[in-house]
C-alpha cells in the first residue's frame, strides 16, 4: 500500500500538475499586466519628482522589483531544490530548472538599471556598491546553476547536482553579501543607497509595490510555462504525454 502511495506521489505529480498549470498561466499573465500597468502609470505619471534625484529616480520602479525578484527567486529555487533532495520528487527539479533563467534575467535587469541609475547619480556606470556587487555575484551563481545543469545529460543527476549547488549558494549568499558590504564600507565609506531615499512618498511606495507584484506574477507565469515544457520533454516516454500529444494532432 505504501508503495502505491509513493508511486502516486512520484509519478502522478507532473501529470496532474501539467493541465493545472496550463489553466493557471493566463490568469497570472492577466494579473501581471494589470499590476504592471497600474504600477508603471503611478510610477511614471503620478509620482512626484524626488527632491534630491530629480526624475532619474523613476528607474527604481524597475530596479527595485527586479532586485527583489532576483533574490526571491533564488530562495524559491533553493526551496524546490531542498524538496527534491529530501523527497525525491520529480516536480521539484523541474521547478528549480524552470525558475533559474527567470532569476538570472531579473538579476541582469537589476544590474542594467542599476548602472543606468548610477551614471547620473554617481557620475559612473558602475560602482562597487555592496548591493550591485552582490547582485553581480548572484547573477554568476544563476549562470553557474544553469551551466551545471546544461552540462549534465541525465536529468535526474542534473537535478540533484543543481540542488546541491543551489543549497550551497543559498548558505553562501548572506556571507558574500556581508563580506562585500564590509569591504565596501572600509574602502569608500557609506555610499548613497538606491532604496533608502530619505522621504519616500506614499505614491512612490505604492507604485513600487505594484510593480513588484507584477514581476511576481510574471515570474510565476513564465516559470510555469517553462516547467510545462520541461515536463513534456522529460516525460516524453510516458503514456500521458503520448495521449496528450495524440489528442493535439
Amino acid at each position, binding site marked *: 500500500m505504501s508503495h502505491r502511495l509513493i508511486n502516486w506521489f512520484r509519478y502522478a505529480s507532473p501529470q496532474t500538475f501539467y493541465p493545472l498549470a496550463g489553466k493557471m498561466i493566463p490568469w497570472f499573465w492577466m494579473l501581471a499586466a494589470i499590476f504592471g500597468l497600474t504600477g508603471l502609470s503611478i510610477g*511614471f*505619471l*503620478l*509620482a*512626484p*519628482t524626488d527632491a534630491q534625484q*530629480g*526624475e*532619474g529616480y*523613476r*528607474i527604481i520602479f*524597475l*530596479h527595485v522589483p*527586479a532586485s527583489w525578484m532576483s533574490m526571491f527567486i533564488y530562495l524559491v529555487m533553493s526551496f524546490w531544490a531542498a524538496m527534491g533532495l529530501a523527497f525525491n520528487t520529480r516536480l521539484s527539479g523541474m521547478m528549480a530548472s524552470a525558475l533559474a*533563467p*527567470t532569476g538570472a*534575467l531579473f538579476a*541582469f*535587469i537589476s544590474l*542594467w*538599471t542599476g548602472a*543606468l*541609475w548610477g*551614471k*547620473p547619480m554617481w557620475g559612473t556606470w558602475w560602482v562597487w556598491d555592496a548591493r550591485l556587487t552582490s547582485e553581480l555575484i548572484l547573477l554568476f551563481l544563476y549562470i553557474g546553476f544553469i551551466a551545471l545543469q546544461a552540462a549534465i545529460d541525465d536529468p535526474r543527476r542534473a537535478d540533484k547536482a543543481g540542488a546541491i549547488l543551489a543549497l550551497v549558494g543559498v548558505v553562501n549568499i548572506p556571507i558574500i553579501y556581508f563580506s562585500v558590504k564590509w569591504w565596501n564600507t572600509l574602502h569608500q565609506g557609506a555610499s548613497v543607497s538606491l532604496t533608502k531615499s530619505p522621504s519616500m512618498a506614499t505614491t512612490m511606495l505604492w507604485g513600487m509595490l505594484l510593480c513588484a507584484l507584477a514581476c511576481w506574477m*510574471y515570474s510565476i*507565469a*513564465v516559470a510555469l*510555462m*517553462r516547467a*510545462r*515544457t520541461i515536463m*513534456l*520533454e522529460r516525460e*516524453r516516454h510516458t503514456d500521458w*504525454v*503520448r495521449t496528450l*500529444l*495524440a489528442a*493535439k*494532432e
Partner: protein
Amino acid sequence: MHWNSLADFLAMGDHGLYVWGSVVVTALLMIAEPILVVRGRRKLLLRLMRQYRAEGVDRRDHRQPTTRRSPA
C-alpha cells in the same frame, strides 16, 4: 497628472536617456523571455510528434518478427 507635456515626460528632467534606456531594455527582455519559452515549447512539440510517428513505424516493424517467432 505630474507632467505638463509629452516632451517633458520624454525628457525626464534631463535623465531621459537613462530612464528610457532602463525601461526599453527591461521591456524587451521581459517580452523576449516568454516568446523564447513559447518557441521552445513549439519546437519540442513538433520534435516529439515526429519522434512518436517514427516510433510508431518502428514498432510495427519490430512486432512482425516477434509474432512469427512466438508460436515456435
